[in-house]
């Protein structure tokens, strides 16, 4: 195996293009574990952490652009980012231990392609957009459009994510992410939900995005669940309808982490609880 430090994204793309066996190394918290446990044996690891701009959080159009190699710990230490998208930052900070937080990145979490990735439901709820660099240049793609299946994304050959953009948001808006795990830390999500809401001056929800994790082959956006919240003040009926829509959208598996029945039931619980937090953050009053 070779270890190569890429100087810029063009070099990283070129190196990725040299063969099938090249993998990117950012935080390494997935790829190094896969090399240890799953027999993943890349020919080359391309370290992209020293590429200019990849490790920075920058303000842009009243939103924030998060470089591909920015760690969870770094996002958590950015007060303005936390104020704008608290749910996204919370989600990223739930990935692994404090030690993993020192390395793990939001872009890596996305590229790993796990349906249980913590940051992905929150990013979808936030309508985040990935900036992709590839042999054919640069393109911007909404996160939801990148998800393909367990371990897979719609990134083309030799493409990489250079940053993720979290957009500006309305004055009365809030987001939240919740996951269920059997312990309080150190587990992979068994069911999770990211919710982003906007409310009007009367506390009525005007816009909503609800995304669920660990209940289908990919993280899924559930427009029916969002629709159940829009036009309401998150009354009991709205929350019940939201939970029901979530349940209907679930297509999970039984595995060592939880039964399909459990995931389905808890996904709705996570979504309604996250919705309440997001609503409060948006300044909504029931």
């Amino acid at each position, binding site marked *: 195996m070779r270890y190569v430090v890429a100087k810029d994204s063009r070099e990283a793309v070129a190196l990725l293009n040299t063969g099938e066996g090249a993998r990117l190394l950012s935080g390494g918290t997935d790829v190094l574990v896969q090399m240890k446990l799953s027999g993943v044996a890349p020919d080359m690891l391309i370290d992209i952490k020293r590429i200019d701009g990849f490790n920075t959080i920058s303000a842009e159009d009243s939103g924030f652009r998060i470089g591909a190699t920015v760690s969870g710990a770094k996002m958590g230490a950015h007060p303005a980012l936390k104020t704008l998208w608290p749910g996204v930052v919370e989600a990223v900070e739930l990935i692994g231990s404090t030690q993993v937080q020192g390395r793990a990145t939001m872009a890596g979490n996305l590229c790993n392609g796990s349906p249980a990735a913590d940051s992905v439901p929150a990013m979808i709820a936030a309508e985040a957009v990935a900036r992709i660099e590839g042999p054919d240049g640069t393109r911007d793609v909404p996160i939801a459009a990148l998800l393909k299946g367990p371990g897979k994304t719609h990134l083309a050959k030799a493409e990489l994510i250079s940053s993720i953009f979290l957009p500006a948001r309305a004055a009365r808006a809030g987001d939240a992410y919740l996951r269920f795990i059997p312990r*309080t830390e150190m*587990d992979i999500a068994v069911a999770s939900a990211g919710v982003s809401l906007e409310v009007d001056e009367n506390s009525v929800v005007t816009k909503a995005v609800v995304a669920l994790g660990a209940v289908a082959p990919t993280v899924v956006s559930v427009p029916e669940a969002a629709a159940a919240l829009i036009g309401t003040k998150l009354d009991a009926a709205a929350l019940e309808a939201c939970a029901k829509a979530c349940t209907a959208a679930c297509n999970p598996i039984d*595995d060592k982490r939880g039964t399909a*029945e*459990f995931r389905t039931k*808890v996904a709705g*619980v996570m979504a309604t609880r996250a919705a309440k937090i997001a609503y409060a953050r948006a300044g909504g009053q029931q």
Partner: protein
Amino acid sequence: MKQEFKVLGTRPIRPDGLDKVTGKAMFGADKSVTGMLHARILRSPHAHAEIVSIDTSKAEALAGVKAVITGDDFADVENRWSRYTMQNCMAQGRALYDGHAVAAVAAVSKTIAAEALKLIEVEYKVLSHVMDVDEAMAPGAPVLHEGVKARKLGDDVSGNTVGYYSFGHGDPEKGFAAADEVIERTFKTAAVHQGYIEPHACLADLGSDGKGELWCSTQGHYMVREVCAEILHIDASQLRVTASEIGGGFGGKTTVFIEPVALKLSQKAGKPVKLVMSREDVFRASGPTMSASMDVKIGMSKDGKITGAHAKLRYQGGAFPYQMVMMGAMSAFAAYDLEHVQAEGWDVMTNRPKMISYRAPGAPMAVYAVESVMDELCQKLELDPIDTRLLNAAKEGTKSSYGPTFKAIGLVEALEAAKAHPHYSAPLAPNTGRGVSCGFWFNFGGQVSVSMAINADGTVNLIEGNPDIGGSRASISMMAAEALGIEFDRVRTIVGDTASVGFSDVTDGSRVTFAVGIATINAAKAAIKEMCQRAAKIWEIDAEAVEWVDGAAQPTGHNAGNFPPMSLAEIAATSGKTGGPIAGHHEGAPDKAGVSFGVHLVDVEVDPETGFTAIKRYTAFQDVGKAIHPAYVEGQIQGGAVQGIGWALNEEYIYGEDGRLQNAGFLDYRIPVASDLPMIEPVIIEVPNPGHPFGVRGCGETAIVPPLAAVANGVAQAIGVRMFALPMSPPKILKAL
């Protein structure tokens, strides 16, 4: 009679503490020598398979590979228990569980060793497997080994049934007939792993002349020496085993898994070999404890008196014969004074890793079942759970359910302390339940050797043969200081290698502070006798006229007051002129270890929408006889309680239909993490053990016994539904709601 102590009961800094907070302490994997090879083990991917052939030629041809071994490299051993141990370290003929070692490689680097493993070609013929205890015990199940079925068992159980035990007295049926309420329930508990953070590791160097050095992480280096000498067919005297600092064991390091393999590779390669298990190896091929299927029936009168009790315990202990259900059958009803009681147990083999002890082995699951039924009876009869246990509690003079009549024990004291504690009467929040359970462990004595040297500067060196797993060097130094009448920091205790002090049994059964303590006191007595004789010579009086008081010899009888007391330091200073070095030693096998009871109280909160259980408050009461170093006694109680909480809530071995382990890592084998827990309040009860000069009882194991039922009883109260299987993971609780 309450003894007064100067050193015992204080909380000095442990002697190995500095090394452990600065990273200097040497654990199993921390030692390296020049020219050593790195070893890796190839493991079976099948739960049960015939090994048709193994071709190691390509691996042997790889540059940098210095030795490859398989089961064929090990000659047979006479003792069948040692043979099982050997065949667990390296399969011969058949792989008996997922993760069973089938070959091993030693190479100049870890990378090359790993590459070589891929070049070993094993042809397997997959055989049918059985994982569940009830299925394995049923007639017609695939039998792991022929000819090892327990004597006197009928055709109603399969050949996997390798042990049957029964304990009790009276006639339970008579007892049930006299009851106002009889409850009979069936329980299941999952296999759990000891979960020590340090994987098994060793560094072996065995020459063709049979002389060997072995450094390893173990609870008993004499055990390692004897088992390895037998398996390798070398003399015990020629194999020196040094115990590294041990990064946790909890029973899981009371046998060998890798040491014979490393020695054999070293012998074959002619070089030192380092072998370290990965975490995945640890889960797949070391430990775990038994899983269980149990029926418990208890009859009770309206006022709470137990009229009869019967338990049937079926444990599976993995791929080889073993004996452990007996401890469960003996523990099940130990807390109660019963007229009619019977506890039966069956040991059963399955295609899982060979079980090894885990803290109070066999007891937690049996007591979980019994204490759950007790709780249900109390609920049904509207009785206070502590009052009911007090009404039935075993005390001095009780004929125990497993035979012996109890001497002084502290169960009543522990129950009364629990009842009086503010925790028991604190208000409960919604969705919260409070659970109570008793627990019991026997505690052991056993073989022990201690050698004590009085140095010319008045300090003391003590060598003992039991690896220090939780601070025992501190408690042993304290007991030496107490017995000699000197300050704690004048004593240094070390764990000697197998060539430097006599045989000692493994560090298990909560025996070290008790047994090494007795040997230390006796070694001190021998040294004191010698020091008194030296003083007598100097004073020119009879040795009998000298006594040892407060760390000094002083004349007694008609000589009293004639000479000023002569301190240990003063006598030691002139030892070179009065007859040479002064020392004391003791070798023995003390018994009368004194059983220990505990009572745990826990508040749990269950989220009714997710089935998540949070531990909100925990208080653990335990009779420890005499707490030598109270901080480390508290630590044992807290640590045991948390292991039990893990067992109750989330820990389990998860197998697929194919018999492969699915959660061989700390990500999905979920031991409690810091944020899962509240503070664990330990309450030390001291009812002195009449069998120990300082009143010591073992304290290490009892605390893992009560949490299973305490948490389960709390959950039952919180959700109004009783769970009959552990772990009570959220999916199971939510399904029950």
